[in-house]
């Protein structure tokens, strides 16, 4: 091939190779989105199941009430949404999933409280409010602490809420628990704590029933909701 013809042909070949790579990437990413959508459907079923349990709670004995734990796929969903948020280019879909997930968390939180009162089972709950932005450096550290806490005390139920998410449910929770503008904030068994808390500080606030975690038989727990408990990316 003479002259610039070869340069042009090579350009076409290179563009074609990139197009194939883009096609494969798009195909697999769409599969991932479908995967999340399927998980999302399961989330919807879990939400309905939670609601049903609320009603059943009125007429059943405590022994008849099963664990309120959300299905294990919910935990996977949290991981997948977190991963997708950082790696897939479909922000609208991801935001919707996060909003739905937050609603699910709140429903589980309410159900847990109901069971705790009705059956006189003390269950420690922590609501964690964070912001996914560089303006909240402590949110990142708080995320590490809560991850460590969850691993050490699996019976503690931790729910994370991204305050940057456009969610009326999260806003309602912020109002109810008087969450200040400066984050991170934690609500431990109904009491609001503002600012970063170390693992030691948190352990001191845990009731004695959740000490000695290695010997305890942990009830299944919800994996920290969302998604990115570290609170930033």
């Amino acid at each position, binding site marked *: 091939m003479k002259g610039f013809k070869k340069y042009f042909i090579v350009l076409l070949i*290179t563009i074609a190779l990139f197009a194939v790579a883009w096609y494969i990437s798009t195909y697999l990413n769409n599969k991932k989105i479908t995967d999340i959508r399927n998980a999302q459907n399961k989330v919807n079923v879990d939400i309905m199941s939670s609601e049903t349990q609320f009603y059943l709670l009125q007429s059943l004995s405590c022994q008849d009430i099963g664990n309120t734990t959300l299905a294990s796929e919910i935990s996977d969903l949290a991981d997948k949404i977190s991963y997708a948020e950082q790696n897939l280019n479909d922000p609208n879909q991801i935001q919707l999933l996060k909003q739905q997930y937050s609603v699910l968390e709140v429903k589980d939180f309410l159900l847990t409280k109901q069971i705790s009162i009705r059956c006189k089972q003390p269950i420690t709950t922590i609501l964690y409010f964070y912001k996914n932005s560089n303006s909240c450096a402590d949110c990142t550290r708080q995320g590490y602490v809560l991850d460590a806490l969850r691993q050490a005390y699996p019976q503690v139920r931790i729910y994370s809420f991204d305050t940057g998410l456009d969610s009326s449910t999260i806003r309602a929770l912020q109002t109810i628990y008087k969450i200040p503008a400066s984050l991170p904030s934690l609500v431990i068994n109904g009491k609001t704590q503002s600012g970063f808390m170390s693992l030691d500080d948190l352990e001191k606030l845990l009731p004695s029933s959740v000490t000695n975690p290695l010997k305890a038989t942990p009830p299944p727990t919800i994996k920290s909701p969302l998604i990115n408990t570290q609170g930033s990316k």
Partner: protein
Amino acid sequence: MTIPEIITYTVVFLAVYVQVFLLVTYFEHLKKMKYSHIEPVPDITNPPKVAIIVPCWNEEKTVHGTINSLLALDYPTDRLEVIAVDDGSTDTTWQELLEYKDNPRVHIFHKENGGKHTAVNFGIDQTDADIIGGLDADSFVAPDALKRMVALFQKNPEVMAVTPSLIVHNPKNMLQYAQRVEYNMSTYNKKMLSFLGAIHVTPGPFSLFRRTVFERIGKFQKAHNTEDQELAYRMQENHMKIEHCANALVYTSSPDTIKKLYVQRLRWIYGFIQNTADYKRLIFNRDYLNFSFFTLPSGVISIIAVVFLSLTFFYDLIVFILKKVSQYSTVGFNIHTHINFNWFYINTQTIFFVTILLYVLLIFSIVAGSRLSRQGRGLDWHILLYIIIYTVIAPVWLLKAVWNSIVTRRQPVWR
């Protein structure tokens, strides 16, 4: 898409473009190369007189091997002379050379130190040979190399210079094995550039020139310690054809420590940048088609690509380390590492597949280069070694060379 992402895609696109260009060239000329690795040594009729100049500076340990390999060349003895020039060595190089004083095929000279190119120019002045070449005193020539190279001169009168394939001599450590892989890839690149008429360097070890080259465009000039590259640029500017003889092998000593390799590569890259700046008039000049539209831009692109990608890599690495430090200082060492093998977490971004493609093309060039230079190693694990070692250390000398070129303007030392 963010600006760093746009730059990354652009850089990778250009890198793939360069490799595809070489690949297309490879398949264009596949027939010519098909049997080059088993091609018999050609018969030379009316062999031209050849002079090989050996510039020596403190080469007491290797100069014997170098000269003896030249004397052992399969070439009519009365048509080959060796000119050894001691360039003011401070060791016993001159005493070693004196052992050849009674050998009629070896002419020895001593001069004050003036740099390698002055020693070669001195040698050129001492001979009336038709073909003149040089051989660094740390290199050894395969016996059949000269005949193979001279045959190319005889086959095409327009060929003004012929370069051989360089092979790492007797590699002993991982760094040298990695360099051997790199040299194989270089053979492939050089051969493709040869087909394109766009070779940009005539390496010191055993590149051969017609005498008319020096008569028409002058001898070696001081050029940022990369005089062999400057001469190739000058030849290209004067439309002189440079061929690569892939199956003519020259074994060269390679740096055995990272520090030595760093010094060598800093000199090469700095020299490339400076020579390209000196000859910037040739870039994107229609008179020098492939040299100006492919060789020089692809060299510049590769430097920009490595600099940018390595800076991005180091930035990400620092962010990762800071995150781990923050995590450790907050909650201590956390042994609960979550490993998930779900396919969902495999990277499926376009850049991932394109990067794999780029690596496949690079590995192809290594294997093809290995075959062209009769190494025949194919896919061996040293390719992986090469990729790992060079990914880590190559950005260092590239960044330093760019820094020296733009900021300090300090010329790297020879060794």
